[in-house]
């Protein structure tokens, strides 16, 4: 009897669900030109995604407010939680929305890897302000719709290694990746650069979401390393930093753009003091070119722009610039080809792409946590001397 009831209930439910999804797909017919963002808008590293989302939103709002467009711009959010397995659904949702002509993102390397084939197939261009794994622009992948708006981890990893070798004169470096595409990519490059500089390297993998970092911290201290590189995101870097402090680690510590967020300092507290953070991004609140942007951002969202906010803003403006040239009836493929060839001088840097959508440009910047704030230091290669 129970089975019959279930069947009776299940059929109308299933039909209803199908009907609903059917209705959902023709939402793109209202004529507006839409720009999407794909990144973590929920989940463990949501702060990194929101930084960029706000940049995109601000650019769209300002363009609409200016009034020189003969069409309306609209924002579409694609939440992938920063997870590769959630990324395809987020990408498909964006692709199915016919009004979307370009995507800012995906934000993280893992999700870029899994969703780029879908974008390539649909001809929808994605310009990432932050996905830094070097392999993403590999020709064999065939990610024909992927453009990278940031120097890749070959630069970031090498920058970390150079700084340790030349400036801090480290002898032995303990190198950790978090087993994500981003972490492994960054660590691999850093390891090679460190070894080339003649530094001894202990390389370990510590998967993200490890419940207790005490043993790892002890291992770092016991290894007698005088410097440490953590290649991963702030969610795990923070408890790890705490445990390092508890374990009595006295050496230098550095992490990349995945950790470069105020949230890292908030979660780790005192333990984050003196941590170095690298980023191919500049500090929008410090650099002269982005002062105005930082003020607008502060006014709009009630907080200072974070990592990659200004870059996402720039990329959105670059897309708007290209869309303007062809008007509201812009085609996805045409826009992709136009963007790939474009050169756009943004507030932060000039965006231009080389072969396979790789970013032209190599600047990486160094930050350091001082007095509970992430302080901007400058270009890492210049600082290393």
């Amino acid at each position, binding site marked *: 009897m129970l089975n019959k009831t279930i069947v009776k209930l299940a059929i109308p439910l299933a039909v209803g669900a199908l009907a609903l999804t059917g209705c959902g797909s023709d939402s793109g017919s209202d004529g507006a030109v839409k720009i999407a963002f794909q990144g973590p808008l929920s989940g463990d590293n949501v*702060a990194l995604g929101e930084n960029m989302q706000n940049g995109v939103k601000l650019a769209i709002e300002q363009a609409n407010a200016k009034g020189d467009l003969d069409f309306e711009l609209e924002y579409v959010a694609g939440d992938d939680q920063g997870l590769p397995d959630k990324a395809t659904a987020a990408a498909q949702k964006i692709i199915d929305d016919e009004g979307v002509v370009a995507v800012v993102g995906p934000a993280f390397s893992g999700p870029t890897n899994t969703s780029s084939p879908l974008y390539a197939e649909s001809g929808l261009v994605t310009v990432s302000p932050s996905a830094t794994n070097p392999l993403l622009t590999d020709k064999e992948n065939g990610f024909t719709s992927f453009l990278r708006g940031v120097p890749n981890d070959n630069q970031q990893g090498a920058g970390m290694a150079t700084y340790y070798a030349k400036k801090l004169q480290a002898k032995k470096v303990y190198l950790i990746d978090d087993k994500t595409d981003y972490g492994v990519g960054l660590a691999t490059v850093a390891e090679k650069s460190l070894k080339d500089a003649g530094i001894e390297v202990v390389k370990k993998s510590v998967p993200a979401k*490890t419940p*207790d970092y005490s*043993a790892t911290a*002890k*291992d770092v201290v016991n290894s007698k390393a005088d410097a440490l590189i953590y290649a991963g995101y702030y*969610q795990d870097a923070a408890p790890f930093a705490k445990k390092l402090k*508890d374990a009595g680690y006295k050496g230098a510590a550095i992490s990349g753009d995945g950790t470069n967020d105020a*949230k890292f300092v908030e*979660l780790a507290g005192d333990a984050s003091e003196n941590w170095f953070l690298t980023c191919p991004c500049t500090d929008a609140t410090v650099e002269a070119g982005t002062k105005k942007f930082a003020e607008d951002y502060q006014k709009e969202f009630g907080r200072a722009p974070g990592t990659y906010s200004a870059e996402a803003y720039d990329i959105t403006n670059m897309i708007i610039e290209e869309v303007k040239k062809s008007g509201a009836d812009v085609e996805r493929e045409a826009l992709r080809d136009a963007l790939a060839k474009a050169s756009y001088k943004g507030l932060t840097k000039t965006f231009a792409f080389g072969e396979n959508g790789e970013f032209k440009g190599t600047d990486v910047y160094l930050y350091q946590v001082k007095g509970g704030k992430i302080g901007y230091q400058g270009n890492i290669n210049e600082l290393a001397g």
Partner: protein
Amino acid sequence: MSLQEFWDYLVLGVMLGSLYAVIAIGYTLVYGVLQLINFAHSEVFMLGAYGSLIVLQLVSPGDNPSALASIGFVALAMAGSALFGGVTAYGLEKVAYRPLRRRGAPRLIFLITAIGASFFLYNLAGKLFGRDPLPLPEMYQNREVFSIFGAGVNITQMLQFGTAVVMMIALDMLVNRTKLGKGIRAVAQDAEVAGLMGVNIDKVISRTFIVGGVLGGVAGFLFANLNQVSYTMGFIPGITAFAAAVVGGIGNIRGAMFGGILIGIVETMTVPLLGDEWRAVSAMVVLILVLMFRPMGILGERVGRAA
């Protein structure tokens, strides 16, 4: 690994293991009385951590609280987590399991309900408290207090281990010396006969849930004190503690304590020997080995018998 390093990791392993043990007790208690794996227990643990966070945000310890104030803050946070854990577990039993029990639903339905409740609570917490991890405010200045075999122990670790041991001893006494404990043991052994003998089964079961929930909630606070609070924090420790409960013998309270500490030591020792990537693997290898050679767990099932 030098002898000193061995002691270092052993101490860390016992610390971590004591937390697993406290969570594992929650699984074992519920299994003992209902023969049900309460997969929502990891969410009881997670909500306990939020409970302590909410209390601490209300009282907001300043930057450098005095020693006495520190103890007060810790006690308040612990009470908050115990309350949240207990209420969640009680609610779970009342809403999710009792109706099934009334209708005599098959075992499988209980299990599916448990998983559903776990998903529900986990997403509800994300919705209510935000999906961003949050730090627990600092309640005291952490520093090294003493050392065992040269392995330094700081305040956080002392708090963690001390609380776990006190809770385990208290639970052992509760089960073996009190009327409620007698009831729990009776229901675990044979619910029907216990009912005929005048034991109020519903009452015993919901109190068992509350006891497990309080322990799980406090463990959530201790865990958050180590790391941070997030709505995803329950899953991994929950699964590990469940494995620990099975290793010790699910349904056996002392087995859960033993299994928890064993798994904690195995995981921690794996880090210097094989690397962090292998810690979950080694814990599961222990589980598989135990199941192969002693399917009832190392100490076997015995909530129903006088321990």
